[in-house]
Structure formats: C-alpha cells, structure tokens
C-alpha cells in the first residue's frame, strides 16, 4: 500500500516536472519568436519535408478510414431506413474527429519521431553545444523552424485527409452500393458547414503544436548516446499520441461551444 502511494506520488511528480519543462520550452519559443531573426530557409525546408512529405501517409489514412467508416455506417443506417444519414455522419465525423486525430497520430509517428531523433542525435554528439558555442540558441535554430513548418502544414494536411476521406466514401457508396451520386452528395453538402472543416483545421494546428513541443523537448534533453536517442524518440511518439487523444476530447467540447453541432443549414 505504501509502495503504491509512493509510486503514485512519483508519477504525479514526474508528470508535473514534465509539464514544467514543456512550459519552459514554450516560453523559450515565445522569446525566440520575439527576439530571434526569422530563418526562411530552414522553415521552408521544414515545410517541404514535414508538410509536403507527409501527404502520402495522410491521404492513405484519410481515404481508407473514410471508406470503411462509410461502409459500416451504410450497413446499419440503411437497415434502419436512414441511408440519407450516411453522408452527413461520415462527413461530420471526418471533419471534426477522424480527420484531425488520425492525421495527428500519423504525423506524430512520422514527423515527431524524426524531430526527436534528429535533435537528440545532435544533442548527444555535441552538435547542439557547437551551436550554443557560436552564440546560436538551439531553440531559435532547431525548434522554431520546425514549429512554424508543422503548425503551418498540419491544418492543410488535416484538410487533405478530410478531402480524400470524403472522396473515398463517395466512391465506395456510389459505386459499390449503387447509391445515386447527386443524392448522396446533396446530403453531405447540406449537412456540412464551413465550421466543421474549420474545427478540423484548428485541431490540426493545435496537434501540430503538441507534436513539435513534445518531440523537440525529448530531443533536446537526450543523453546517453544511441540508447538515449532511441528512448527519446519512443517517448516523443507515445507522449504526443496520448496528448493528441486527450487534448482532442477537451478541444471537442470547447469548439462545440463555439461551433455547436447541428448549426448546419438543415
């Protein structure tokens, strides 16, 4: 019993220490944006490798999730005589939840891991110290371009996932289940508001920020050579995935408050 309480205490303490370190990093990033000079080259490079390069992963994720979700909904909804609801349900779910969350999870695996590994390797091989020794703040040079790159790219990637999800669900429902195309599209469009897509993109932006802060933090605190870098990389993916899922729930409630579901033009 005592051991359990001790463990609980250690976990809580560890959590708050982690949160404190993340807050420090965020504050440092704020200072860097105010005081550092913009690095267009590095930022552009990040947008290409992080945003442009993640498209295939995101498209496949969006398309197959959209398709399978549409199929399952169709089976049940048409049983209940609610076939007209399939399109709206798929569309709303993709825009508000599946699009941003799945994109976030995929990107945290692809991009967050790479960020933690790159920065971590630089840390353990003294390249971060070399930067510092030349008067270059590692946050200015390593974190900010990645942050801007990912926070710019994520909303677009989310939109892309949603788009391909809708396209795939349309193709599946229309071609496989022989539902009239215009009828299906009419229900989708009539029940999807701009707000729904906005919610997805806002979430994407927030998830991008979570991935960057968590992954760069793991990279910058890496020690102990290859083992440490490996551990940091794993931690970055696990932590950012969990953070995305948990934050998503709260974000959903918060955004629902501003953009209530059902405000579409019925």
């Amino acid at each position, binding site marked *: 019993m005592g051991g359990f309480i001790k463990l609980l205490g250690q976990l809580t303490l560890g959590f708050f220490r982690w949160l404190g370190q993340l807050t420090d990093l965020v504050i440092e990033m704020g*200072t860097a944006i105010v005081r550092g000079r913009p690095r267009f080259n590095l930022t552009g490079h990040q947008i290409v490798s992080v945003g442009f390069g993640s498209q295939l992963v995101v498209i496949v994720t969006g398309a197959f999730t959209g398709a399978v979700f549409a199929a399952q909904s169709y089976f049940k909804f048409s049983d209940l005589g609610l076939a007209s609801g399939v399109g709206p349900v798929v569309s709303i779910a993709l825009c508000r939840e599946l699009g941003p969350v799945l994109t976030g999870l995929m990107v945290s695996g692809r991009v967050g891991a790479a960020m933690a590994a790159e920065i971590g390797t630089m840390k353990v*091989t003294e*390249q971060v110290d*070399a930067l*510092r*020794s*030349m*008067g270059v*703040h590692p946050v200015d040079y390593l974190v900010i371009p990645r942050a801007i790159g990912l926070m710019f790219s994520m909303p677009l990637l989310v939109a892309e996932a949603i788009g391909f999800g809708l396209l795939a669900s349309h193709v599946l429902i229309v071609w496989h289940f022989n539902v009239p195309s215009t009828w299906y599209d009419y229900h989708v469009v009539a029940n999807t508001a701009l707000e729904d897509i906005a919610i997805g993109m806002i979430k994407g932006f927030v998830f991008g920020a979570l991935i960057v802060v968590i992954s760069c933090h793991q990279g910058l605190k890496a020690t102990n050579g290859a083992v440490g870098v490996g551990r940091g990389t794993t931690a970055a993916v696990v932590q950012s995935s969990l953070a995305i899922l948990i934050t998503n729930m709260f974000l959903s409630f918060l955004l629902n408050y501003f953009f209530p579901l059902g405000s579409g033009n019925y």
Partner: protein
Amino acid sequence: MADTRKNSSNPFVQISDLRKSFGDQEVLRGVSLTIPRGETTVVLGQSGEGKSVLLKHINGLLTPDSGSILIDGEEIVGLSERALRPTRRKVGILFQDGALFDSMTVAENVVFPLQEEGIRDRKVLLERAREVLSVVGLEEHMAKMPINISGGMRKRVALARAVINRPECVLYDEPTAGLDPIVADSIDHLIRRLEHEYEITSIVVTHDMKSMNFVADHVAVLRGGKIYFHGTPKELNALHDETIQNFIHGRSGESRS
C-alpha cells in the same frame, strides 16, 4: 594600445574557485586560473581529470556549482543562454570530437559562424571557406559530408570552423590528438600564427608534449580537480616532481621488466 593588450594585469580569462560535480563525482574542486591576453596557455592533465569540462565552462556551455569566471573582465557565471551570446562570439571552441554538423558539407560547416554574423554573399563565403580550409590543407574536400572524411580531417575542419571569424580567444580541446606528426606540426604552427598575427588568446588542452613545448607560453597542470602547477614550459620541464615528470615522459610509474 598594443602594450595594454599583452598585459598580465589585464587577463582575458580569470577563473576563481571553480567547482563542478556530476552527481556525486566532484570533477572540479576549486580551480583558479588566470589566462593572459594574447598568449597561449596549455592545460595538461590525465584523461578524465576534467580538462574538457573546464573548457566548456569557459564559454558557458556548462554551469559551475560555484565559483567565478571573468571573460574580458565580465562575469559569465549566472548569465542566461541569451545573455552569453556576446561573450561566445569572442570565444571559439574546438570540440574534442569535432562536433561538425552532419547535415552540412565541410564548406557549409566552416562558413556557419560567418552566416550567423549576417554574411550572405555566396562568393564571399566561398572565398573565406577556401582560404581557411587551405590553411588546414583541406580545400579539395569542401563539398564532402563530414561522415565521408577521416577523423583527423574532421578535427581540422572543426578547427577551421572555430577560427574562421577570428575570435579573440580560441579554446582547443586536443587539437593534435589522432593526427599524423606532420599535420599535427602544421596545426601547432597554425595556433602560433593565430596568436602572433591576430593576438588571439589560446587555451590548448593536450597530451602531446612536443606540441606543448612548441605552442605554450604558460602551462597549467590539472590534477585532483585543482591546478597543480602553473608556470612556463621551462619551469615545468625543470620541475623535480615525480608525477609531473612521469606525465611529461609518458611513464605510468610501473617498471618495464
């Protein structure tokens, strides 16, 4: 003016009672050392004595547990990362393992400090890169990645990067370790030349006695976390101290029968 620069009452670095522990290992136990301006001080000491740790304190890469470090008359202990920037511009460092950026070519590594100072003109950068790389004999390897050159070559690239923007002081962590005798000799000459031509203050950590005798104006021996000896190379060589003589002549103290 020229007189005041080489003035022992106006040292470039002044370290007093510097202490640093890692966990329960006390590495520096009260190091006090004065580095005269425009001259070369060699730091000797056995492996693991804390020479690299000492160097990293001098440009603020490590924070001491206590003690004071004055660089050019300014206290750097307690300064924030951003406030250290002006000091770090004055002090270049050659890391023991080079610490080249492995995502950049040799030339990009070397001109990095210039780019950070705002020089953008590609022609100027290329010119400067070629100039400094020819000094270390590597101008043919400008376009290679650090991973594709030898360890000794990486060291020389790192040296070029450390001196390209002519800092007032350069910290060399074992500049000649792992180099063949001929290249090592040219590095020694480079250190001397930088000192004489640009009045650069140099702190050289080395195990290489030949190099020490060639470059040193002053020698400090780090032992047991403190400065065990501080004087000229002549005084060191003449010293009747078994530990130091063993170190100079490379004897472990065991007999060779």
